[in-house]
């Protein structure tokens, strides 16, 4: 047989050709590689959530290898001395084993928990970005709804995860969950007994929550995340207005190589921050909480931060129950309003907000350009109203800790929360609205009169005025007529090229400021070594 000499250099080409002959991927692959993404820091916030989710999957799989989701009573006999000989459920015992008897188990547990907090925190931050820039407008309403759903799926993923170790804190949380179910009118007791498999706590809730936590909810999350990203891909990312940017184009970088590489680096950074926090800060020390007993509780019992707003609303709710004197009597407990009605409203209202806004403004156009928060004061003010509501509710979820550590009366904290919840959001609305108008006004002023130069001139009549540098040729009144485009207006002289460019570098200068004498008449020396129109130097 004649052996052909293998040409190493030709292998990739041949493999690629072979793949394309079979799969016909060349065209779609190229359009993927070439996809253009706009670049702005706020567009990276959603990625934090995506990358945290990957960390959650990785660490979560590890944890399932050791976790035993069973409520069977066992006697602990592991390394942790302070619980040895204590009766507890197998779920709690195996969580202790992960923490103390599996090499590196505690770091995995802590990474999983920190990643969960990070996942939810970045979802919320990302949501704020999308809201305040109007990125949810047509054609992206569906993706907004998916995003809100992702938050609530994350909420349930977090709550089930918080519950399954079966420690003292998670049992308290489950008890409250059961009370929330019980508070539903008519179906309450049926709902609770169906989910718990009988009276609280029963023997089924941990295995059921486990399967929800590791299979059902992650599957839904995966599907929703895939749909979320797919829509971002097919609809193409929104972009800020600015020179050369229109509603019909995307200005940015092609996905490969630079953009994708940045994403890869950012993933590692997110992963790194989570790992670092997991080592630096202890989270959820279940060994101190002990096994769940219906008779034991701790002061300062709180849920994780993303559930805290609901707990806060429950705490602030006055004791208003509706008693219905028919037959033996029926009751709608106070719990129902914050944990049932209000939670429903807080889920539905954000989802329908794009439709509400479109209806109110009569706006049916397609928007691929973002709006700066200041350019839509009603929306921005509404958003701040919602955020202030959320923050007050969240702080109230830990109001006992605040009361204790800052020496405030607990009852006073509750009243502050009750009043604050009603009073602060309208104030936030009004203040935000005024700030937005003020910022807009300043932009318009610069467009009309020019940039403040810092040069004070004394007029012959003795008045002092500041000299403004107009951004275009002014008319006879000294006004320039530039269109307000909703994008950054230069407000310092160096932004219009009249002075040396701002010093480069994030924290520290990476180059010496230009030494050439600069004046408004002489544009600065360009520090770049050489400029090519479009280079192909590689």
């Amino acid at each position: 047989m004649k052996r052909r000499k293998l040409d190493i250099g030709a292998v990739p080409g041949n493999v690629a050709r072979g793949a394309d002959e079979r799969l016909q991927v060349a065209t779609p692959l190229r359009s993927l590689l070439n996809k253009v993404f706009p670049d702005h820091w706020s567009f990276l916030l959603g990625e934090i959530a995506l990358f945290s989710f990957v960390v959650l999957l990785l660490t979560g799989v590890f944890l399932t290898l050791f976790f035993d989701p069973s409520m069977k009573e066992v006697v602990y006999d592991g390394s942790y001395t302070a619980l040895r000989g204590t009766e507890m459920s197998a779920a709690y015992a195996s969580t202790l084993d992960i923490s103390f008897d599996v090499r590196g188990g505690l770091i995995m547990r802590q990474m999983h928990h920190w990643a969960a907090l990070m996942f939810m925190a970045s979802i919320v931050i990302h949501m704020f970005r999308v809201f305040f820039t109007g990125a949810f407008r047509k054609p992206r309403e569906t993706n907004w709804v998916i995003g809100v759903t992702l938050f609530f799926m994350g909420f349930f993923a977090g709550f089930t995860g918080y519950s399954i170790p079966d420690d003292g804190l998670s049992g308290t949380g489950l008890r409250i969950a059961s009370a929330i179910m019980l508070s539903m009118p008519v179906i309450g007791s049926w709902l609770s007994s169906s989910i718990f498999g009988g009276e609280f706590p029963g023997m089924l809730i941990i295995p059921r929550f486990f399967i929800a936590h590791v299979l059902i909810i992650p599957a839904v999350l995966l599907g929703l995340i895939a749909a979320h990203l797919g829509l971002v891909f097919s609809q193409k990312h929104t972009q800020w207005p600015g020179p050369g940017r229109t509603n019909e184009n995307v200005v940015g970088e092609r996905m490969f190589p630079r953009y994708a590489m940045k994403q890869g680096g950012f993933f590692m950074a997110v992963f790194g921050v989570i790992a670092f926090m997991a080592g630096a800060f202890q989270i959820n020390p279940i060994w101190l909480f002990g096994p769940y007993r219906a008779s034991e509780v701790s002061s300062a019992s709180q849920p994780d931060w993303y559930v805290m707003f609901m707990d806060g609303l429950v705490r602030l709710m006055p004791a208003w129950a509706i008693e219905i004197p028919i037959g033996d009597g029926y009751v709608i407990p106070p719990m129902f309003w914050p944990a049932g009605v209000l939670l429903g409203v807080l889920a539905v209202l954000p989802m329908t907000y794009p439709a509400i806004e479109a209806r109110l403004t009569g706006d049916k156009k397609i928007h691929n350009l973002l709006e700066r928060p200041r350019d839509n004061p009603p929306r921005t003010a509404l958003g701040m109203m919602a955020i202030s509501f959320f923050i007050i509710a969240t702080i109230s979820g830990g109001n006992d800790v605040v009361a204790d550590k800052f020496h405030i009366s607990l009852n006073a904290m509750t009243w502050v929360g009750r009043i604050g919840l009603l009073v602060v959001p309208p104030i936030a609305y009004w203040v935000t609205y005024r700030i937005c108008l003020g910022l807009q006004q300043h932009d318009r002023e610069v467009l009309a009169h020019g940039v403040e130069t810092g040069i004070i001139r004394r007029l012959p009549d003795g008045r002092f005025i500041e000299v403004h540098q107009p951004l275009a040729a002014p008319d006879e009144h000294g006004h320039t007529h530039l269109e307000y485009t909703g994008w950054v207006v230069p407000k310092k002289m160096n932004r219009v090229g009249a002075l040396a460019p701002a010093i480069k570098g994030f924290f520290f200068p990476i180059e010496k400021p230009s030494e050439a004498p600069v004046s408004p008449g002489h544009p600065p020396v360009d520090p770049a070594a050489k400029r090519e129109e479009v280079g192909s130097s590689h």
Partner: protein
Amino acid sequence: MTSHSPASRGAGRGGGLRARWRRGRNSPPSKLRRRAGAAVRLVAALMLAGGVYTFLAPSVQAQEDVALSTAAQQGKEIFDNSCITCHGRNAQGIEGRGPSLIGVGSASVEFQVESGRMPMVRQEAQAERKAPMFNAEDTQKLAAYIQELGGGPQIPSGPLTHDMDADPEALSRGGELFRLNCTSCHGFGGGGGALSSGKFAPSLTDVSERDIYAAMLSGPQNMPVFGDNQLTPDQKRDIITYITGQLQDGGDPGGFNLGRFGPITEGLAIFLVGITALVFTCLWIAGKS
């Protein structure tokens, strides 16, 4: 041994009175002044009455003097200097100012005085822990006085914790009891917690063994009493072993414990550390330079 607080308080009050008096002289007699005058007369009358009573009933005191040991006798002197204002003669208590100390026992005195809660600076929702005013010796004398006066629970002599080597199970027994009886107010991590209307359960992170024992025994302020029939001295030692061995000195295997306040500080950390760090990273990634 003289106490600073009553003296300084007296000086402050005197200054206030003098100031008010001076104001009064410059202005025509006011309603306020008339009322102040009435108060002064009332106080004078009360003092006179008290003096007469003391003069007329010296025998009660004399009898007790005989029964007291030397230490208790010295304790009584301290008491008469620093505590009598609120707790009254012979620790009988004064309605509206301070409770009777008959029957509270030396455990209570040790706890309150050693932790600086007594003497109180002013009446408030709850006495705060502060630097103690009396040294250990004087505290013992005071305790002896109250003990001999009315009896009551005492901290036993001997060690207040179990030896972990001889009895390693004590730790988990103590943990079990701690979670059933103590965590509801002091928290799983022993960091303390809020009670109603400005009252609170103090943190246990730097409390001494004796203080914990005395507190359980005497139920200071709003803390329920855990008498020896409810929690035997042995069980109390279990709990103290857990608090000092595990909560105070047990360390945190997972890194900095964020104050053991629970999810609220964890939520704060994820925003202040995690999200902040990553938003700065975002700014840098997308930055032009």
